[in-house]
């Protein structure tokens, strides 16, 4: 008597606007962190290394190096670690590259799904909280070594400013006010940012500070890739402001990187 109308079996009935919940019911094997068959120690998967986020006058900058490592080998020189989550936010991924990329993709779909079903965007806190739940779901995989710890940053329309969040492997979410970095080179990047970051920096200065930190991380950490002038590979840098998520073009990054390297060569600072 109480069975749902037959036609609903074609789509199924879900109570809210969460894409993740649908996936958990319909296709649980597609969820990041779902237990897989074997318990054997797998060969070490590629790891993404350093991502960082910096608050500045107009919003936040997110940046990451382009290298993925597997053990002591370079797995990829051109991996992308900063993903657009929606128009006003982005995720930077560090840790096991496979699950992290998958998590970023699920997160994008989650936000877009909510937006389409509800007709409006989630608040920035809502987005950050959702990501924290995804990281928590990945905990079993993290215990086996597939750690995923992203940085989430975005522009908060209500508050009118850029905000950034860091996470731990249990899904703990901590808001940072000024800057943060994640990944193997994160300590070096943070040390650099600690000295260089200033309140309300204009875009050019923020860009320079960001790239200084990434260059320092690449300098000190073997896993982090520096700017590759030979192949023309530069860190990926994005800005998130009131007007949306934007790429900083490679030419501009190259120009700033060359200025920094030029200054360092001349003055032998940072050596």
């Amino acid at each position, binding site marked *: 008597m109480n069975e749902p*109308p*037959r*036609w609903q079996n*074609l*789509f*199924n009935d*879900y109570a809210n606007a969460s*894409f993740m919940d*649908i*996936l958990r019911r*319909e*296709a649980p094997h*597609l969820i990041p962190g779902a237990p897989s068959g074997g318990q054997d120690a797998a060969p070490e998967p590629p790891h993404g290394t350093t991502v960082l986020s910096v608050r500045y006058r107009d919003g936040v900058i997110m940046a990451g190096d382009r290298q993925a490592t597997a053990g002591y080998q370079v797995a990829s020189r051109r991996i992308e670690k900063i993903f657009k989550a929606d128009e006003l936010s982005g995720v930077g991924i560090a840790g096991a590259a496979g699950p992290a990329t998958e998590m970023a*993709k*699920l997160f994008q*779909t989650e936000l*877009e*799904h909510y937006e*389409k*079903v509800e*007709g409006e965007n989630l608040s920035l806190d809502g987005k950050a909280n959702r990501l924290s739940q995804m990281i928590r779901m990945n905990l079993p995989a993290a215990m086996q070594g597939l750690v995923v710890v992203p940085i989430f940053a975005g522009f908060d329309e209500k508050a009118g400013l850029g905000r950034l969040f860091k996470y731990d492997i249990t899904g703990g979410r901590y808001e940072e006010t000024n800057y943060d970095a994640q990944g193997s080179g994160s300590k070096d990047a943070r040390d650099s940012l600690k000295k260089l970051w200033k309140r309300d920096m204009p875009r050019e200065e923020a860009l320079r500070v960001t790239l200084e930190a990434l260059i320092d991380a690449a300098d000190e950490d073997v896993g982090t890739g520096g700017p590759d002038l030979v192949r023309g590979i530069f860190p990926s840098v994005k800005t998130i402001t009131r007007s949306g998520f934007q790429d900083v073009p490679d030419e501009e990054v190259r120009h700033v990187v060359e200025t920094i390297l030029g200054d360092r060569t001349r003055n032998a600072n940072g050596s």
Partner: protein
Amino acid sequence: MPLPYYVSPEQMMKDKAEYARKGIARGRSTVTLEYSEGILLVAENPSTLLHKISEIYDRIAFAGVGKYNEFENLRIAGIRHADVKGYSYSRGDVTAKALANAYSQALGNIFTQDIKPFEVEVLVAEVGDSNGARNEIYHILYDGTIEDERNYAAMGGQAEEIRRFLKDHYAEGLTLDAALQLGVRALTVTQNKTLSEKDLEVAVLDRTKVRRKFRRIPVEALGQLLGTGR
């Protein structure tokens, strides 16, 4: 024990169809037109919050007429279908055809198996890429009948008259403002009132946009496109 009534299947279907058609005829209409840069959807809808037109996926839009709660259910089911498919395969694999078929199945099942049929018609539009792929417009009726339309489509109370009007006045390669003006004229063809931008809900699937092609046209921009001097 009393015997259940016998009603012949023909009679039952006829009654249901008549019931659904009456429900749909009470509602306001929606037109869809292909224009030079995509697909335009225009609905007569004074509400700015309860939408008749919405985004399903990157290149796909949805429009519904009839009973709001019924087509709203279908809209959300469609978004779920598209998002799961796009996540498990690739974004390019989500097609209007598959979605239109799912709607057709759903509405067909409801029509034959439930006591009360849905009083809705829905439309699924997919804009083709700039490399010359063609647009697709599917129109699904309350009983699951599916039609694939070219150039223009009309749904709702005055659909017949609107279709006749568009047949005479539609030309290929319309600009956005010309298409919009034609669409609005078509909506008023059976009424002797004019529609202002406040009575309209307008959205486009704009093939020049990156990734998500769906865009609502806000009231201010509508005024300009319609030529406020009218």
